[in-house]
């Protein structure tokens, strides 16, 4: 009962925030609202008991990306450019995509159902083996770091690559021989 209430309230606020973002013209307000959007999704993750994901969403979505978006606004313009295109075609595309996504969810197992693939595939195996194999209370850490260590190494490499990419594009670091004896 209380779960339904919480979910309804959170989803309603999520939709309202999204609508407000679409209507807004001042980019500063848009960025702040997208931060609110992230915070609301973090709350939704908490109600789903996915605390690690909620943590990440709150820190990255509501925190860092807001700062970076503000930094981007400072480099560009503070308001939306008026679009001269007709909004009709994009609306159709969005509606069709949305309908396809909703159609796709019809095949999915009911929320929280016991025979969902997430509950019967490798999940129970990890849960039963973690106490004897790794012996840490937070199974998420055990899966990410040990059972799926390769994946996490790959993710770290992706973060590293993304950082290098942004640095190359934005920071204005030049090759040393182009500078007049000045080290970077």
């Amino acid at each position, binding site marked *: 009962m209380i779960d339904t209430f919480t979910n309804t309230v959170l989803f309603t606020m999520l939709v309202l925030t999204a609508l407000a973002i679409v209507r807004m013209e001042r980019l*500063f307000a848009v960025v702040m609202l997208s931060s609110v959007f992230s915070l609301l999704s973090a709350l939704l993750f908490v109600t789903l008991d996915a*605390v*690690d994901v*909620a*943590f*990440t969403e709150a*820190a*990255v979505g509501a*925190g*860092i990306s807001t*700062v*970076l978006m503000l*930094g*981007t*606004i*400072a*480099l*560009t*313009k*503070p308001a939306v450019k008026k679009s001269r295109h007709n909004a009709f075609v994009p609306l159709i595309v969005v509606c069709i995509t949305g309908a396809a996504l909703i159609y796709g969810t019809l095949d999915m197992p009911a929320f929280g159902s016991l025979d969902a693939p997430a509950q019967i595939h490798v999940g129970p195996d990890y849960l039963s083996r973690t106490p*004897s*194999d*790794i*012996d*840490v*209370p*937070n199974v*998420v*850490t*055990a899966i*990410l*770091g*040990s059972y799926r*260590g*390769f994946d*996490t*190494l790959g*993710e*770290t*490499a992706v*973060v*590293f690559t*993304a*950082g*290098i990419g*942004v*640095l190359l*594009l*934005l*920071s*204005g670091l030049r090759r040393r021989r182009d500078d007049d004896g000045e080290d*970077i």
Partner: protein
Amino acid sequence: MIFHHLILRVVTKLLVGTIVLFALYVQFHGDFSPGGGFQAGVIMSVAFILYGIVFSLESAKKVFPEWVVHKLLALGVLIYAGTGVATMLLGYDFLDYDAFSPLHPTHGQHWGLLVIEFGVGVTVTGVMVAIYYAFAGRPPSMSDEEW
């Protein structure tokens, strides 16, 4: 300029230490509570970014120089991958942390998790701060009043 925002500056000075402490808690307590290297790295970088926003980019760069950030970026990945190489040198599979304590495999796993999470944290801190420096270091195209 520097005399503006007195309340923000005092609160920031109080908060930065707490944020760093919380980041370290999330980093090294990740086996027992939610969080881990990624979240800890983001929180750690938030401390420096907050400092940079409220004071100035230059003072943030004095605390955490750009060249250190750029080295950290790569160091984290090296720590992570190096752990894998170390387990291989000890005769186990890549990233099989049992290698660190063959008699008590779970202890080895604890050590391994601690080290790789630290590697993730270092890289994420470096990347986030580096991206912030890159964005904030460019000359802004609009004045403060336009916001």
